[in-house]
């Protein structure tokens, strides 16, 4: 294990979303389920949800990773494409918490002064209300801070670059978030959740969605599942709910 692999484990660790508070969000699952219980299919929700998060967010994570010095503009542009208030709140809450985790704990893994400065400056702007601090943007930024080099394949591994791994972990975390929400809602049990996460088909889905998102420019990023925005918005209209999104 080299340092970058260790750092990648930190980002993939389920302790991270716990600290960040991600588990109070279901990414639209709860509202979609409550609106259409009879027609609900978790497998199909997961697939469309992964595609949706990739088509909207991946180009921005990529941009934040590649151009940390312009992260404020990238953050504002992402905010402009996020027209669903509930998604926006969930993204900003997690992003800001992730910045806090960085400044309290993860900062020590980075030896790159430029990146550290970019993160510090961005965090200050977010605290001052000048920037939003969206989840994907912060993810790309701290992914870079983890010392994972841009475009160069990691040693002893396949052709995946460090950036690709950061993106993969983000999408994997999204799948885990949806599944853990499904467990808490009682749609599936914990073993089934692990079974789905371990299945070759979810790997295929993650990779396929990721590749699709990677092909997009920021200007082309958008919603692939229009109903999801409506369902997610209507989280606020649910009579009873477990999650904030």
């Amino acid at each position, binding site marked *: 294990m080299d340092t970058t692999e260790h750092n990648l484990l930190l980002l993939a660790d389920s302790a991270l979303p716990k600290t960040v508070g991600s588990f109070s969000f279901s990414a639209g699952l709860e*509202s979609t389920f*409550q*609106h*259409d*219980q*009879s*027609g609900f299919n978790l497998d*199909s929700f997961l*697939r*469309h949800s992964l*595609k949706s998060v990739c*088509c909207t967010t991946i180009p921005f994570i990529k941009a934040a990773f590649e151009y940390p010095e312009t992260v404020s503009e990238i953050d*504002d*542009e992402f*905010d*402009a*494409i*996020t*027209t*669903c*208030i509930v998604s*926006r709140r969930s993204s900003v809450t997690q992003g800001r918490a992730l910045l806090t985790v960085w400044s309290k704990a993860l900062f020590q893994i980075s030896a790159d002064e430029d990146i550290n400065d970019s993160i510090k400056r961005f965090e200050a702007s977010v605290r001052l209300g000048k920037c939003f601090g969206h989840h994907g943007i912060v993810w790309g930024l701290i992914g870079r801070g983890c010392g994972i080099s841009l475009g160069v394949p990691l040693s002893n591994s396949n052709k995946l670059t460090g950036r690709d791994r950061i993106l993969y972990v983000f999408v994997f975390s999204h799948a885990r978030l949806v599944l853990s929400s499904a467990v808490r809602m009682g749609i599936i049990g914990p073993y089934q959740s692990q079974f789905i996460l371990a299945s070759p088909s979810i790997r295929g889905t993650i990779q396929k969605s990721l590749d699709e998102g990677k092909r997009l420019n920021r*200007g*082309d*990023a*958008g*919603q*692939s*599942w*229009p*109903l999801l*925005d*409506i*369902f997610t*918005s*209507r989280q606020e*209209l*649910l*009579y*009873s709910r477990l999650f904030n999104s």
Partner: protein
Amino acid sequence: MPNTSPSSSRVSLNPGNGRIHCTRTSLSTLAYRYPLKLISPHSSLCYILSYGGGIVGGDSIEISVKVDKDATLTFLTQGTTKVFKPKASGLISKQIIYAEVNGTLLLLPDPIQPFKDSSYIQIQRFEVYGRMVLLDWVISGRYEEDWLLSSYISNNEIYKDGNLIIRDVLRLDSSVRESMGSFRCFANVIIFGFPEMEARCLQSYVNEKKVRKGTTLDKIWSVNQVRGCTVIKAAGKDTEMVKSILRRLLDELQLIGGRDCLRPLE
């Protein structure tokens, strides 16, 4: 007729292009070239027409619009805009609108109707100093053809003083056949600069009945206020259901654009 006025004949245009300049009292420019047709019954209303009621693969429509201060312009279509299957694969139909809005722009077309195997890209870019309402909607296809389109991209951008306010992009492909379920119509409305109407839209959304577990809805909608715009999204098992939601929310536009302007929602 303004479309034969001397000023329009002087404008040279590429095929499928059109140009409109709406002043307080008239359309000082109204020019278009095949396969696009722009018909204006009076100075504040313009119909966007295409031959055969639709766009063929490879066709590219591009309209540039300028609305002066204190002027109001409503855009309508006559029936859905059909996107036909291309004669050769890989051909994409395109529709682009660029608008500078200093007055009021109401862009209220009928829905886009993408046929089986069609590919469509729509880009609408607005520089807004006045106010505008944009309706952008899509239905599942021809009768008994549900979401068999090959690709569909709709990209709406609103800028103010050079800053991006909203970019709402819809990217559909063959996966919508499953993800849309039995919903056959999806509409997106962006409202900018109508504070009172926007507040009423939000209020009527907030007042919606609370959703209880196990409800199954035939139509579903949301209203969000973001970055100074109001965004309404609505979906229904058929177009009529979406129309009924939007008619209720947008009713007062009649006071601005006249009775004609809500005809697409009738």
